[in-house]
């Protein structure tokens, strides 16, 4: 079972991984964007940890909605509202006690919220290209009765692979789309950070 503490730990771990990868994310964004993605997510997660410490939300859903709202309030850019919506929608949907199935369902709702807000679909070279595979992996794990730990591992792996699939793509959404064919050959920074989020969850669930 996944408790509120686990979700707090998720954001702590995500903050650490993003901090460690901040310059890489920013470099990815420099190649096909405006060189701020690492800073944006790092700033956002720092604020999320502060907010979680202050407001001490009690349920997993509350942790997620708090995190989502904070990202919306503090990040700006494209990724702020998108990640904010992901977590807020997830939090709104997620009922306690949290099971893998409920988590997978809430995650899917979150991803749909991102798609709806950003109007991006698979293959547009955005964070969606990492999030959708992660969501599918979770759904399959539920269907197959896999345990939480392995399910989250599979989701993390799917997200990482999804991020890599953005490399040969030409961007059709976000700032990278302005580059036309020149966006080909670079990993999408938002997909890369989405993979970090999923890796962080897998790491704390062990």
């Amino acid at each position, binding site marked *: 079972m996944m408790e509120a503490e686990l979700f707090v730990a998720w954001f702590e771990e995500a903050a650490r991984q993003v901090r460690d990868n901040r310059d890489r994310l*920013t470099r990815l964004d*420099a*190649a*096909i*964007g*405006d*060189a*701020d993605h690492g*800073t*944006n997510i790092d*700033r956002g997660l720092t604020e999320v940890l502060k907010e979680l410490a202050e407001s001490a939300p009690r349920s997993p859903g509350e942790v997620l909605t708090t995190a989502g709202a904070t990202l*919306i*309030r*503090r*990040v*700006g*850019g*494209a*990724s*702020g*509202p*998108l990640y904010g919506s992901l977590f807020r929608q997830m939090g709104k949907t997620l009922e306690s006690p949290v099971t893998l199935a409920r988590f997978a369902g809430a995650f899917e709702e979150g991803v749909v919220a991102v798609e709806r*807000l*950003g109007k991006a679909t698979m293959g547009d070279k955005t964070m969606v290209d990492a999030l959708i595979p992660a969501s599918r992996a979770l759904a399959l794990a539920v269907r197959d009765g896999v345990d939480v730990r392995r399910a989250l591992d599979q989701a993390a792996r799917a997200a990482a692979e999804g991020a890599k699939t953005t490399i040969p793509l*030409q961007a*059709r*959404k*976000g*700032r990278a*789309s*302005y*580059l*036309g064919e*020149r966006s080909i050959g670079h990993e999408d920074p938002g997909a890369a950070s989405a993979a970090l989020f999923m890796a962080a969850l897998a790491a704390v669930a062990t």
Partner: protein
Amino acid sequence: MKKLINTADSVVEDALNGMAAAHPSLRVRDRVVYRAEGPRPGKVGLVSGGGSGHEPLHAGFVGHGMLDAACPGEVFTSPVPDQIIEATKGVDGGAGVLHIVKNYTGDVLNFEMAAELVEGVEVASVLVDDDVAVQDSLYTAGRRGTGATLFVEKMAGALAEEGAPLARVAAVAAEVDERSRSFGIALSSCTTPAAGKPTFDLPETDVELGIGIHGEPGRARVPMVSARELAGVAMEAIHGDLPLTGDLLVMVNGMGGTPLMELYVVFAEVAAFVKGKGARVSRSLVGNYVTSLEMQGFSVTVCRLDDALTRWWDAPVETPGLRWGR
């Protein structure tokens, strides 16, 4: 990287403190820059915003005849909905508020969220998307908003000052955008304080064509040529999309690091191009207005004027970045 900053984290805050100290006509609170005198009852409020690093856009255009408030985000990062909500409430004089939004995913999403969340204020939005370097197709996020933002803010601002209702101010703002086109060329990249190194490396021999205003690489990299040829590239791109005829408002805009002398060299070529097409430069602006930190290069923005737009362009304006008539 050498920058006149205290820390990369505090640069926006520190710059806003400087703006507040330099311009008694402005009031800065919670990352929103307002006119010091507050909203005027019955006047439509104009709110814009976007990433910092484009100064004087947007905060430098707050004042009589232009914006009522600007929401500066972090460097090259759209502001957050909270700022926009605060600004919207803070400038409402009862006649509603127009959001002037440059077409970037981040700006659009944050302004949309704010517009949804703000209560008790009628909000309309105009999307600025003048950059012909980007194709407006299903395969892109649509044209970027660049230099025309200044035109929209100026002309809609003048109309709002006349007491026009929200729907009309919004319609004219959209019309200005429709009549405007831009194209930008970079000779060098810029360096954001947080990244600490240039966003892209450009060899001594090359330029980037079709850049935006966030230090993004452009559509193509080509060998450096003369000012005449570069102006020709920009003007052909614009003319190919919106044929140049009649009276034009033409801005040759530095990206922040271009000597004014060179902008005048470019302007001479742009003016000659316009003349060659049988059109007329009726109003003009040469200088650093919509910048990308210390980037070198230029953008040209052209707006097809009519009598009404000319009148709103000529109307008095009193802001730190643009001032005439008072």
